[in-house]
């Protein structure tokens, strides 16, 4: 268990890196940049990482946050790993559909379903 950033809660579930956001809003550019850096630092030494990002309490996110998710996904893919997103509220999920990023990301309804898919 490690708190790599005050904006994220990062934990290990078997061989999966689980990342939970601790803020309801992911809007501020500086915070988003920090989140991206914290995740990259965590994943950098890993090979073929299995990553789960949970949006349980997230109520708002901006296009800048989407950009960071895309960057993280690219890093994970480059390392031969897998990223899954889970527990996204319907309003936020709509943002993924509008931007067609639902085609780019693997999205599960629950963390349990995502962990099962990553097993």
């Amino acid at each position, binding site marked *: 268990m490690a708190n790599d950033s005050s904006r994220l809660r990062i934990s290990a579930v078997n061989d999966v890196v689980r990342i939970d956001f601790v803020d309801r809003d992911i809007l501020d550019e500086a915070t988003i940049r920090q989140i991206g850096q914290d995740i990259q630092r965590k994943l950098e030494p890993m090979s073929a990482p299995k990553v789960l990002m949970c949006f349980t309490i997230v109520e708002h996110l901006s296009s800048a946050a989407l950009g*960071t998710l895309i960057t993280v996904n690219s890093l994970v893919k480059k390392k031969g790993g897998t990223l899954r997103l889970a527990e996204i509220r319907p*309003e936020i999920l709509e943002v993924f559909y509008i*931007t067609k990023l639902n085609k*780019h990301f693997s999205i599960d309804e629950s963390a349990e379903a995502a962990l099962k898919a990553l097993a």
Partner: protein
Amino acid sequence: MPARIEGHAILRGPRAEIDACQSAVEQAMAQHGYGREALFAVRLALEEALVNAIRHGNRHVPDGQVDFQWSVDGDEARFDVRDQGEGFDPEAVPDPTDDDNLEIPSGRGIMLMKAYMSEVEYRDPGNHLAMVYRKSKDA
């Protein structure tokens, strides 16, 4: 129903300025009975509009300011965001939903504003954004 509520702010960049504008608009919309979907839509669109104006519009303008005017009544919420930059051609922004562009991290702000607002117009030369949210969109 309360009277039309109006606001005006000059933003120079700090995050607290954006949060203060968002909060004032949200309170006005709540007073006029806008629902949760409307508040979500306007918050997202304003976030993109104000950040774009500060970060991109005024990118080459030292000490640039963003002029933000808004009004909310029982039927609609109107927003005008003006930066001091040279403007841009919104039609020239690549479609972020094209398969070839899905992995590009940026360029989704304008399409999100268009998706969530009733009207979005960049006025010549592209440094004045006018947006409208109509309450009927709530229904």
